[in-house]
């Protein structure tokens, strides 16, 4: 019962949030200079006739007053209709459904990789001496400071061109996703590792870690039973942000590695002013963010039920 009401509350909040996002985007798009009808017909470069432009306005209700357009737009959204892409003349939902798996795969794999790398970096740094710690800091910070587009290029040079170990484009195989996923994962892992290490060091020197050692636990056991959970918590908190960042990063990574996906669609849509597409992707990424936050909350509730219920610590 408590779970149901919790879920209902969260879903309600998410719906309100989505509505605000949709409204913000609606306002933003209507404020962009330029004739949307021209964008529909392929931009000012297309040789659309005045009749064609008028027809497009008619079709997309661009002649109606703004409030009517807004109502129509919301009405469409509620029924799950994201509209038709100007550029591809296909339903936005259909295009996104085609693009989503690739981006989701990339994002999820890189999140996992980022977590693993971050955790390893944090674990190694946390257990080394002062110089090791300082080195760890520098590595983390540098990792966090590497721009995706540069990292992608470097990885291609090293692993595809020089060593020839890994393909530089999506081949539909496991190997094909390694470099793009790494490109997305490494900067993220730098951020995560900084957080994780702090919590890890604190946890490993805390009284409960001492208590665990006192009852015969090995360092490894202390690490996995205690350190890991405590390191995971702050990093988990950042997952929502990390997913949002990954989607931003995916724009660049998909471009560099020629992967199909939402990110590339987004860039293309922005460049061609394909507003239904932009709206669809923006709403969708907001939705993903909220779903992820929900999942994160649920996982946190498992790791740390007390905090989830707001009990006093």
């Amino acid at each position: 019962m408590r779970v149901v009401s919790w879920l209902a509350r969260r879903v309600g909040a998410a719906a309100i949030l989505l509505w605000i996002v949709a409204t913000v985007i609606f306002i933003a798009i209507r404020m962009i200079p330029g004739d949307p009808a021209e964008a529909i017909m392929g931009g000012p470069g297309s040789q659309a006739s005045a009749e064609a432009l008028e027809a497009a306005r008619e079709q997309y209700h661009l002649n109606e007053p703004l409030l009517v357009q807004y109502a129509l737009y919301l009405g469409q959204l509620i029924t799950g209709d994201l509209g038709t892409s100007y550029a591809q003349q296909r339903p936005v939902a259909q295009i996104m459904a085609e693009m989503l798996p690739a981006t989701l795969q990339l994002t999820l794999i890189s999140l996992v990789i980022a977590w693993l790398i971050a955790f390893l970096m944090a674990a190694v740094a946390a257990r080394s001496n002062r110089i090791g710690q300082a080195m760890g800091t520098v590595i983390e910070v540098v990792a966090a400071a590497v721009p995706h587009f540069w990292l992608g290029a470097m990885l291609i040079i090293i692993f595809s061109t020089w060593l020839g170990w890994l393909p530089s484009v999506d081949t539909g195989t496991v190997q094909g996703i390694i470099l793009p996923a790494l490109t997305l994962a490494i900067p993220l892992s730098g951020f995560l590792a900084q957080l994780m290490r702090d919590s890890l060091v604190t946890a490993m020197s805390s009284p409960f870690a001492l208590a665990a050692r006192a009852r015969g636990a090995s360092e490894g056991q202390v690490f996995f039973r205690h350190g890991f959970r405590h390191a995971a918590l702050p990093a988990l908190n950042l997952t929502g942000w990390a997913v949002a960042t990954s989607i931003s990063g995916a724009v660049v990574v998909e471009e560099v590695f020629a992967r199909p996906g939402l990110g590339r669609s987004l860039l293309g849509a922005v460049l061609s002013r394909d507003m239904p597409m932009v709206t669809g992707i923006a709403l969708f990424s907001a939705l993903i963010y909220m779903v992820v936050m929900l999942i994160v909350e649920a996982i946190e509730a498992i790791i740390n039920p007390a905090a989830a219920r707001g009990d006093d610590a």
Partner: protein
Amino acid sequence: MSRTAKILATLFVGLVVTAALFPSLLAPGDPLAVKPSEAFQAPSLQYPFGTDESGRNVYTRVVHGTADSLTIGLAATALGMGIAILLGVITAFGPRWIDSVILRLLEVLYAIPALLMALLIIAFTGPGTTPAIIAVGLSTAPGYSRLIRTHLRTLVNSEMFDAATVLGHSRWHKVRNHLIPNTLSTLLALITLGIGQAVIWASALSFLGLGTPPPAPEWGAMLANGRTYLHFAWWLTVFPGAAIVTIAAGATLLGRTATRSRT
């Protein structure tokens, strides 16, 4: 901060400031001067970072680009921070309902990926340096706002503030003696951390062709340009990229050290 760290930090700041303010001291020459006959020279004593496709000296360009890249980073951070301080102060001290409304809005902004927001903003303004600054500034503001709000709330509810209240210090004295100085040092650390990220974001926009237009020696634009010759002239990609990483990582390290040494 250890001695070595202090020396390194001073050197780093000195180098960056010199490069930004007096680039000709480090690299005499015109970053825009083309010399087609000298194109694609690999790094050598004469051209430490090689030359680009138009025979321009990459080292000179990287050094002279410091000002451009740093200006964008600083301006974007200043913009983001300015908005964030405003929102932070309103949420921390304003009525509860404003706090919750702004928090909701910030959550919305958080839910939209930063680059998407930047792209939306650029869809308004068209590409260019100023739009890039605005885009990066606006997309970083929500994060800062949250941090500042939390920081202010913590300060106001701290025993330090209580102690001053009990001593009968006026609101203004508490703000002047404790709130502003303690916030400033936090802000300083945040800004240092932020500049690095802003430089990266701005260069990402340039990379996508939406930031500072060429031939200005902005690092992201240089990188975008050099990437074309990735397999042929690696130095065109490596050095501007390394400059971005150095300044972003350096700023972050400075910021972290500052934060650490305070607590």
